[in-house]
């Protein structure tokens, strides 16, 4: 954020105590992430069509939509795991383009949690978490491990620091993956269907960690099918359909009074399935 925006920075901790409360436009300050008329094609398939939206500091945005609606692709564009064909994405004042220095700088500030965890299997939990801070933040191993122990406590994995990922359950692996991202002290966390690869009994433990994170004031953009999470924690729900944002609204409005027939039937189907 640039200096002139500082006075408008919202009072985050207080905001964070009221998950789901909609923030008024004048309280939001400058957006942390701006996407403007973003387009992407996979071959002839137009996956993302003229998508524009903004994400603000401290906001928890939940992106939902059917498979193939482009929601994951859009999320992955925000740290350039996917490129965009046209339009503009600006994160924390830096534009995402071919410039590799920009990309590396942005990726250090944007944490990402994947559906398939993607922990490094040849490293212990501790080394998974400390690798990036040691390489990029110039901290000593001792400092990095100190921070890591704090993060492991936060995600309830303190007893597992010496283990390898294959010795952990899916839910435990995902909690470690969240700690690994947090170790870089990112300004925003992206979650790409973080609970979709988990057995039902493990979903809750991961969602609980994410809820704590949201309450602590972390800016989060979450692609998920967990409607309960969206209702409880989101400040804004974004509905993707055929590569476009069909609707974005606070959860009470989105679920309570869906404007669109398509959204109504989607919510109906999801709720039945659960």
């Amino acid at each position, binding site marked *: 954020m640039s200096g002139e925006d500082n006075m408008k920075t919202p009072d985050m901790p207080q905001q964070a105590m009221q998950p789901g409360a909609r923030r008024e436009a004048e309280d939001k300050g400058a957006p942390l992430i701006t996407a403007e008329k973003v387009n992407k094609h996979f071959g002839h398939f137009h996956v993302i069509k003229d998508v524009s939206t903004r994400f603000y500091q401290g906001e928890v945005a939940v992106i939902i939509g059917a498979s193939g609606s482009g929601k994951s692709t859009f999320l992955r564009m925000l*740290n350039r*795991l996917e490129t965009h064909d046209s339009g503009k994405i600006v994160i924390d004042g830096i534009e995402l383009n071919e410039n590799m220095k920009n990309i*590396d*700088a942005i*990726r*250090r500030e*944007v*944490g*990402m949690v*994947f559906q*398939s965890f*993607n*922990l*490094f*299997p*040849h490293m212990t939990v501790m080394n998974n978490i400390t*690798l*990036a801070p040691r*390489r*990029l933040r110039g901290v000593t191993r001792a400092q990095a491990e100190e921070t890591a122990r704090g993060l492991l406590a936060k995600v309830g994995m303190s007893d597992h620091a010496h283990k*390898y990922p*294959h010795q952990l359950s899916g839910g435990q692996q995902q909690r470690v*993956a969240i700690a*690994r*991202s947090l170790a*870089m002290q990112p300004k925003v966390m992206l979650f790409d269907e973080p609970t979709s690869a988990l057995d039902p009994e493990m979903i809750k433990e991961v969602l609980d960690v994410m809820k704590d994170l949201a309450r602590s004031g972390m800016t989060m953009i979450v692609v998920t099918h967990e409607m309960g999470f969206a209702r409880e924690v989101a400040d804004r729900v974004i509905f993707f359909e055929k590569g476009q944002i069909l609707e974005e609204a606070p959860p009470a409005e989105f679920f309570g009074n869906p404007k669109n027939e398509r959204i109504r039937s989607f919510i109906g189907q999801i709720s039945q399935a659960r």
Partner: protein
Amino acid sequence: MNAAISILPAHWSRERRSAVSIAIAVAGLVLFLWLMAIPLSWMPEPIGSAAQLFAEGAKTTVQLTVVAGVAGIALGVLAALAKLSKLPPVRWIANFYIWVIRGTPLLVQVLFVFLALPAMIPGLQLSDFNSAVVALAFNVGAYNAEAIRAGILAVHKGQTEAARSLGLTPFMTFRDVVFPQAFRVALPPLVNNIVALLKDSSLAYTIGVVELTNIGNRIQAATFQPIHSLTTVAVIYLLLTTILTQISNAIERQLDVERHR
């Protein structure tokens, strides 16, 4: 070939047992090279009196293998990366290198480095040993490249994505995340290549390197007893390849964090 590991205490961790068995196997190789002249000297003629020569020859063979093997792995990594490069000219160079090396006999390559290279570029006259190392390293490097390339491709794309999304540079991502996993996958074929290299180092004989095969041939020519001297040579090769396999098995176990033992 789990001899080394099975006699170690079962309550030791897998890492500890495999680290110890790597150490045992390496120490075994050193001891074998250092002390082999003693049992050989007890053998009947013509071996007994030539024991020291056999030991020297075996040492040279191992030197050729270790130096060319290490250089060959480095060349293999470079060629594998070049083959996976986004830049077409870099890929062409790597493909050309692999095509030439795999399509020509190693004996021709050894002779080429020793005889043709200095004729083409005056001043590039390497010693017989160094010529053999260069030819063997480039040869095994081409085969290693395929093994390492397959290893790199076997690492899940999500690993690179996770590393890059943490902000790690492409180099860090390769060194810390992709290569260690790729190397584990590539290890069994790499070991095959190194064992083949140990045996192929006998071709250095043709340019006058005094290695094991050269010694065996000299002694059978001098004594007219081919059975004894060549059998001795074969047994020494067999022991060397066995020790090499032991070392690599231990390394494989060391890197294999995902198997429960």
